[in-house]
């Protein structure tokens, strides 16, 4: 191809070369930033996997910790896993119905001004640091009644509430208005439209929000430090007493000078991480699926 006659402005000159060089440099920096982002995740996940995988055995889940163990005693963190199960389960049982009801109120009943106010409150509540929630529940429940799994669950529920409510509000808003109008037009009262038509349509999104919220609070340490942390080593299931939990166990073991304790901390961290990653990924999968379903309904 023969060269097209270029005007002086189009011809490569120093200025253009410099602009291109700057552009290139910035592109390289952006690529590097992307690589660093991935590398950080890779390094953290790899460290946890490498150090935790070797310690992963059945004892971790079935045996309680042995205090002042000398030599290699078979011990695990069964009390922490049991406690986490109870506390997170209770928290979900508290936060899920309330969160869904809040979303129903905001979406179906509230006037616009109230809707905005509740939305803003949820966002602000979501931004309150977990450690402040911990202090709050300490003042509300623990100062008078002492630590308990119930107090820990309540603290986690306060963290979960805005997450569940926000997610449900968003998915309820996706339900096509025509569906609501069709139901109301057939003479179905509002409450049955809401519970029988709109909620079932958005169940996928609500489950997604709930799973993400569970994944988020399952790793929360701060709210449990003040509410359910002064515990023995025996496995307990009764939320009336303080229960050990996986994050608090990791926090305490990470501070220990004993390498055996670190090993168990890594194993617990790996289990926690796996749980959270699996939960988030399946939530993501559920989200795309339910959105596709809603998209079909809209057409």
């Amino acid at each position, binding site marked *: 191809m023969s060269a097209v006659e270029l005007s002086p402005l189009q011809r490569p000159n120093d200025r253009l070369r410099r602009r291109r060089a700057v552009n290139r440099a910035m592109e390289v920096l952006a690529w590097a930033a*992307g690589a660093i982002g991935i590398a950080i995740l890779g390094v953290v996940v790899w460290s*946890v996997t490498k150090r935790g995988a070797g310690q992963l055995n059945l004892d971790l889940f079935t045996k309680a910790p042995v205090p002042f163990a000398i030599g290699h005693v078979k011990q695990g963190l069964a009390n922490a896993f049991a406690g986490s199960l109870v506390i997170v389960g209770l928290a979900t049982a508290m936060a899920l119905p309330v969160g869904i009801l809040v979303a*129903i*109120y905001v979406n179906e009943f509230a006037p616009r001004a109230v809707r905005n106010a*509740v939305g803003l409150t949820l966002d602000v509540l979501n931004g309150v*640091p977990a450690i402040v929630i911990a202090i709050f529940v300490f003042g509300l429940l623990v100062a008078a009644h002492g630590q308990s799994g119930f107090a820990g669950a309540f603290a986690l529920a306060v963290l979960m509430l805005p997450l569940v409510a926000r997610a449900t509000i968003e998915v309820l808003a996706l339900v096509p208005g025509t569906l609501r109008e069709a139901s109301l037009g057939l003479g179905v009262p509002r409450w*049955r439209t809401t519970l029988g038509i709109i909620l079932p349509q958005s169940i996928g999104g609500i489950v997604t929000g709930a799973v993400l919220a569970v994944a988020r609070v399952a790793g929360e340490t701060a709210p449990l430090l003040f509410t359910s942390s002064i515990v023995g080593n025996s496995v307990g299931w009764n939320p009336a007493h303080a229960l050990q939990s996986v994050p608090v166990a990791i926090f305490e073991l990470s501070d220990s000078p004993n390498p055996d304790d670190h090993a168990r901390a*890594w194993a617990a961290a790996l289990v926690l991480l796996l749980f959270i990653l699996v939960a988030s990924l399946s939530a993501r999968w559920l989200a795309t699926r339910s959105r596709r379903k809603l998209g079909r309904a809209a057409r």
Partner: protein
Amino acid sequence: MSTYDAIGDEARRPFSGRRARLGDLSLQTVAGLAAAGAVSVLGLIAYKVVQGSRLSLSTFGLGFVRGIGWDPVHNHFGAASFLFGTAVTSIGALLLATPLALGIALFLTELAPRWIRGPVTALVETLAAIPSVVIGLWGIIVLGPVLREHVMPALHSTLGFIPLFGTPSPAGTGIFTAIVVLTIMILPIVSSISRELFLGVPTELKEAALGLGATRWEMVRGVVFPYARGGVAAAMILGLGRAVGEAIAVAQVIGGVDNLIGWNLFNGGNSLAAKIALDYQGATSQLEVSSLFYLALILLVFSLVVNLVAQVVVRRVARRQGLVAR
């Protein structure tokens, strides 16, 4: 009597009447109560935290914020060194995380081949899902020694004339380690919000800039950044809020040294949130417990301000762009 009238009221309109109204009313009431409860939780949090800190408030007043000593033996408490630690760690983390996050967002919206955008976005957001206690564990055992052996001496020998990079501490913990850990924790927040903002920049504007002969970077600087400026500011504010409120990971790596205000980033220190977390079992006197509540009160006020400001900015940006942000 017509056939229409012959059909009973129930059959003609199966859902009408008292039962439907009762159902509507009860659902509305229950849902309304739930919403009222959710809103009042925020009020209750504020009330309880203020109530708990009353003793410390009346003893130290606003001077608490300026007082340096945290001295359980002489029953004197002040928040200044923790405020300093919080400010240095979170601002440092924000300074490190923002350019990196903007780079990631630009990479994901402008540069990356389409097939890696989805996976990389998911991976970066996964970083946000890692619990802080796991990041903290990694910070103590893996990151700390690396920083102590390699990064801190290197920074000290090259940039040692700046007081920030003084003599490295013998422990791997300290303000600097906390900054790095917090950077990792707020990176996904800032980058995912920025990514969405960049995606919202109208293609016509970008194409117009490219069509005028701008290079890709000039297009980003001239079109993408100005368009997303407000939103990026909000993202930074939210990241700052997260960094300030983070207790556990910071408590694990900051060293837990009270009452120290100095420019050497390699020293140990303590932050507001970490101090509360570290003292969860150690408070002895009522005044000390009340002073911990006071620290929480400072955090609460800060987080309320941060979130309200961020929300206002986000809403304004959303209105201007005519799209719903987030």
